[in-house]
């Protein structure tokens, strides 16, 4: 089977009637790591939520496909089962449901009902993934995200990614609020999942995490569009020069271009 491909074409999205994404185009293939960077409020998280199908985000134009399938016609759960994963910026808490129980349910949701994952096999995989992320095994019996620290929540997101083995994973601000050690551990987890069968889209405000996960492509989003794409050196430029540089250099050009 050919590697996965997520294609976003001329995507327009509104939130509560206000346009946020205004013609965003981006394409990710298996084995590639793309970083989407940009100042706050330019639509980075909207992009992540829209790809996953959050009901609050209304797509007003354009398309998103995964391996040619129209994702926009699918509900969130169907997108997940098709191989999409979103590591959330603010993972929700679910009281009374253990992390292990949740993960097993999620795994079984993508299997034939008559062939649930075997407990031993699941436990082994879970333990292995927890080791990669330096997570204490007792973690699996804690209620999903309840009372987790910021770092634990982020690690739990990557833990889920390692177990669910998506084809395209979007990591939304996976490094925010983490100290340098935690960033390194999370990045190790992400790195462990890299393969030709996985395309990664890393959404981040800071360049820091890209020191650990080298992107193949960096895209700068401004005002709902990709205004500049390049290699890893682009992230370094941003790090040294900040986003003001983008505003000064690129915005007039964007505004001057035909709509």
């Amino acid at each position: 089977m050919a590697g996965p491909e997520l294609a976003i074409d001329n995507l327009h999205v509104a939130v509560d009637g206000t346009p946020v994404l205004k013609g965003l185009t981006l394409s990710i293939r298996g084995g590639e790591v793309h970083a989407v960077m940009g100042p706050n409020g330019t639509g980075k998280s909207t992009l992540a939520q829209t790809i996953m199908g959050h009901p609050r985000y209304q797509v007003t134009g354009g398309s998103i496909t995964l391996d040619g399938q129209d994702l926009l016609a699918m509900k969130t759960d169907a997108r997940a089962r098709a191989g999409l994963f979103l590591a959330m910026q603010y993972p929700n808490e679910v009281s009374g449901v253990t992390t292990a129980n949740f993960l097993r349910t999620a795994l079984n949701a993508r299997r034939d009902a008559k062939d649930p994952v075997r407990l031993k096999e699941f436990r082994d995989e879970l333990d292995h993934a927890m080791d990669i992320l330096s997570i204490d095994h007792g973690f699996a019996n804690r209620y999903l995200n309840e009372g987790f620290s910021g770092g634990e929540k982020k690690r739990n997101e990557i833990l889920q990614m390692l177990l669910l083995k998506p084809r395209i994973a979007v990591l939304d601000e996976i490094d925010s609020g983490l100290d340098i050690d935690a960033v390194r551990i999370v990045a190790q987890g992400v790195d462990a999942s890299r393969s030709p069968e996985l395309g990664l889209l890393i959404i981040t405000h800071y360049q820091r995490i890209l020191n650990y996960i080298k992107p193949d492509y960096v895209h700068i989003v401004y005002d709902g569009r990709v205004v500049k794409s390049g290699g890893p050196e682009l992230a370094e430029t941003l790090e040294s020069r900040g986003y003001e540089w983008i505003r000064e250099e690129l915005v007039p050009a964007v505004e001057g271009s035909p709509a």
Partner: protein
Amino acid sequence: MATRQQLVSEEYEYGFNDGDVGVLKFQKGLTRQVVEEISRIKQEPAWMLDFRLHALDIFLKKPMPKWGADLSALDFEKIVYYVKPSDRQGKTWDEVPQQIKDTFERLGIPEAERKFLAGVSAQYDSEVVYHNIHKDLEEQGIIFTDTDTALREYPDLVREYFGTVIPSEDNKFAALNTAVWSGGSFVYLPKGVHCNIPLQAYFRINSENMGQFERTLIIADEGSFGHYVEGCTAPTYNSESLHSAVVEILVKEGARMRYTTVQNWASNVFNLVTKRAIAEKNATMEWVDGNIGSKVTMKYPSVYLVGEGARGMVLSIAVAGKGQHQDTGSKMYHYAPHTTSTILSKSISKHGGKTTYRGLVHMAKGVEGAKSNVKCDTLILDEESNSDTIPYTEVSDSRVEMEHEATVTKVSEEQLFYLMSRGLSEEDATRMVVMGFIEPFTRELPMEFAVEMNRLIKFEMEGAIG
């Protein structure tokens, strides 16, 4: 209306009935003759008949309670007050009439008994048709029998305690039960005896318009421990049935008693039950109370904490679906210093169902160091459903600690999105949130009951997503 009945029975898996299997069935309605006849059939001592008739007077005088759920559809004249299902009580299931035995098989009772119960009592309409207790428990002096048998075999014990925790004057339905009671369990745990595996009673209504009025009396003597579990189901009919039990429990010094209920009545049953315990010095009373079915439930398990250091706990779950009102809660009366009470009430309403938490914490004078903690959590699954929390407190002493916390949550869009983003369908995601919500309750159940409870809740949630 056939379509309505179909709809109802699709939602309730125990809605089947066995037809008219009783060997004796009274006419509808409640008169002095009905009470006298029940007592005569049971060949009761005169004091019990007097007790019943006195209670009947009280019942007739007391007005219908107006402060709680809507009881206007309940017509006492349309209820059958006594149905005798069988001529004798079995000690083995083979002695139980075939059809009734089949019903209990279908409900899984004999199987559960074989697997993990210390004793089982099975009541069908007005009488207990099966009763058995492990030999070794009997040898330790534990008494577990139906209350009618107890009245014959242990008349002094019954007379000493009957009606002392819940007098007939307490409320209209306690009076009604006292007038026409039949069946129920009698448990006596001798001093220091620990019964570590549960005793179970199962209550099944079969007849249409049936009134089931079991009477349970439990005495946990000093330093003893016991766990009593009850389950209830009934067929689905288009007219109302009534279940009005009285449960009285005495927990003596240093004893601990747990009483677990998983009520799953059909949606035509009025479930109006009075449950109360008295906890003496350093005694512990725990009510674990699950209300999933019925048309209306009004039930507020309470504990009178009369001895220093006594503890009371109520952990309850109420699920109200279409046309159901669960008006439940708890009452804790602190009458001694350093007594503690904990109430954790969880309720779920869906499909237009209504849940009400109605509770009371009473702190008498001189209860220095008493503590009470009340927590009510409500989960509302759709816009048509609703929930009320009505906590009362009466405090006559300032040297006490009281905490109350109430939360109302809806299954949020964000929570569903999160779970669905991992591949769970909306229905599975909702169910997962619900199962997590009731987990503090199910975790307290014996494992087999937790499995059953989870199964029931899953069943209740089917089709919960429009």
